[in-house]
């Protein structure tokens, strides 16, 4: 729980592994969820129909633009990478009972740090060197940004849900400060952008459709996070703290340090997510880079009940919706942000209808 008592979510894992559900139950549950997602699609369809857009055409173009086109799948994978990492940035602190709504700021700060390092390195060094150093810088910056909220929580008893939320705006201002000020590209036609990344600072493609290797980085890190949380002492201690802080303290665990470390790890993951988005797709620091990614990832982690493997799936789902949004503008002449409605309806349905965690006695 956060300082003000917000539950970090339904936590399982400490006493999980109930009896396996029967095939019949599984089928019923699958049917139920298919119905729910269909309902979400129907609601969104009704909203667009009000704007005189045929929902069936819309869904067809969303489908083709994301899953079957020559660029769609690659774009989805590229978008999923930062979503996965920022989603893990919510999941890890949540395991320790902390609420991190700061993915937004941690992404931006990560990208900013990577951008600063890129400028400093200029054209020196090879691709691997450049990207590794940029990735490290992003991880450290993201970790510090989230760690700030962690320290405020431990030393100042400031609720981390609120402080991470507030730091999102500060993070955006830090990025703006650099791109409007010291890092502004003089040959950028007056636009507030930093100098473009060099060839050696751009993320290589993965060979999987048109995507970049960021998706591999995200998948590997998701697997590592899953293993660490469930197969190491640190992960176990973390989940103990999340399960019952007082019991963990009496068992002799360093609760404060564990909580802080969860925030640091989370921030580092989100920071790397920002760096991936920046180096794979953006190529230039600009204000608004990665906007709403952090919030989307927060929802992805909730959709996944903070389980790393499911975070990957939820991030992919939300990435499909997000990329479909980009095509709406061209296809149906609707603003791209329209798909936020679909994201929201899916989320609201899931938040409403999953089996609620039993109230702690």
């Amino acid at each position, binding site marked *: 729980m956060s300082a003000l008592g917000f539950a970090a979510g339904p936590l399982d894992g400490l006493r999980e592994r109930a009896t396996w559900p029967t095939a019949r139950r599984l089928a019923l549950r699958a049917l139920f969820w298919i119905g729910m997602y269909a309902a979400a699609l129907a609601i969104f369809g009704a909203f667009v129909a009000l704007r005189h857009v045929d929902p069936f055409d819309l869904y067809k173009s969303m489908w083709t633009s994301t899953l079957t086109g020559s660029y769609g799948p690659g774009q989805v994978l590229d978008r999923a990478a930062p979503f996965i990492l920022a989603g893990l940035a919510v999941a890890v602190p949540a395991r320790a009972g902390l609420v991190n709504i700061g993915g937004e700021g941690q992404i931006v700060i990560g990208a900013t740090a990577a951008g600063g390092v890129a400028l400093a390195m200029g054209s020196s060094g090879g691709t691997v060197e450049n990207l590794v150093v940029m990735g490290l810088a992003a991880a450290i910056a993201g970790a510090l940004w989230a760690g700030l909220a962690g320290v*405020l929580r431990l030393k100042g008893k400031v609720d981390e849900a609120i402080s991470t939320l507030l730091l999102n705006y500060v993070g955006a201002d830090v990025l703006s400060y650099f791109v409007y000020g010291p890092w502004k590209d003089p040959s950028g036609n007056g636009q507030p952008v930093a100098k473009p990344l060099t060839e050696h600072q751009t993320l290589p493609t993965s060979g999987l459709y048109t995507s970049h290797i960021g998706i591999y980085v995200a998948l590997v890190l998701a697997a590592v996070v899953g293993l660490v949380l469930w197969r190491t002492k640190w992960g176990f201690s973390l989940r103990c703290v999340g399960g019952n802080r007082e019991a963990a303290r009496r068992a002799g665990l360093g609760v404060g340090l564990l909580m802080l470390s969860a925030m640091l790890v989370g921030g580092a993951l989100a920071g790397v997510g920002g760096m991936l988005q920046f180096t794979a797709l953006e190529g230039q620091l600009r204000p608004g880079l990665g906007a709403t990614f952090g919030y989307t990832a927060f929802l992805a982690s909730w959709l996944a009940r903070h389980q790393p493997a499911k975070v990957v799936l939820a991030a992919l789902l939300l990435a499909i919706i997000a990329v479909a949004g980009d095509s709406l503008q061209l296809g149906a002449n609707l603003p791209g942000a329209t798909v*936020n409605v679909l994201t929201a309806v899916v989320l609201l349905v899931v938040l409403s209808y999953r089996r*609620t965690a039993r109230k702690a006695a």
Partner: protein
Amino acid sequence: MLETILVGAVAGGTSILYAALGETISERAGAINVGTEGTMLVGALAAAMVDIETGDPWLGALAGIVAGAALAAVFSVVTILRRGNQLATGLATLFLALGLTSLYGATYVGKDLGGFDDHKIPLLGSIPAVGKILFDHDVLCYLSYLAVPAVWWLLFRSRWGLLIRTAGERPETLLAYGVSPARVRATAVAIGGALAGLGGAQLSLALAQSWSEDMTAGRGFIAVALVIFGGWRPLRVMGGAYLFGAAITLGSVLQVHGVQVNQFFLDALPYLLTIVVLVVLVRRQRQYAPEALGQPL
């Protein structure tokens, strides 16, 4: 210069004040709605749309109230009826608002609307300095002066306020008393949404006098922080809202006067200020926080 900043503080702080008053009511009933940003946004658009279509700003303001309450009702259904998590649901309703306002607002962007102009109040408005700062604004701003004591009275002097505060502290007591805590909390959330919607309406009808996408620009999140900052008390929340209003205005005023201050530092100032205040006033925060805040019923 100070006067200009203070005038701007009141003008810019009013929308935040409404939203924060609304959030105070819903948090007193135990519901933290971080979707307030979205509630303001739908309120702002609904108000602008109705004003543009009918030419009547009062109908517009009413539409803002209704739209805000409606979005808050979605939050209520998920968090109270279905026991969904409040933070995640709040963010989900924010996405709903972002999507809906961009879907239906696209055709209204930048359109002229009548809205509410500033009207100086006779007599009061002629008081030196104070008159200019407090009594030369739009009518929704004047209404907010009345809303603050009204909310205070409602929460701390009315029977119904007692029910609300009980829903936020010890919901089970309400059950024993024979009142449904769910109903009380849902009503409080709806009123909170209505006020946030009115705040949004003030933004589009009076302050900007037009609709633009994402025009709340974080004011709703500030309102949520402000409630904690103000210790869940309407009067302190009012002070905080004007402080934020001042911080928002400060940048442009200083620039006009040729003072070189970094714009982005000023932009970040309100958020940093809130964090500092939360650190300093943390004891009060603990003391005043409704005990069942964020807890499902």
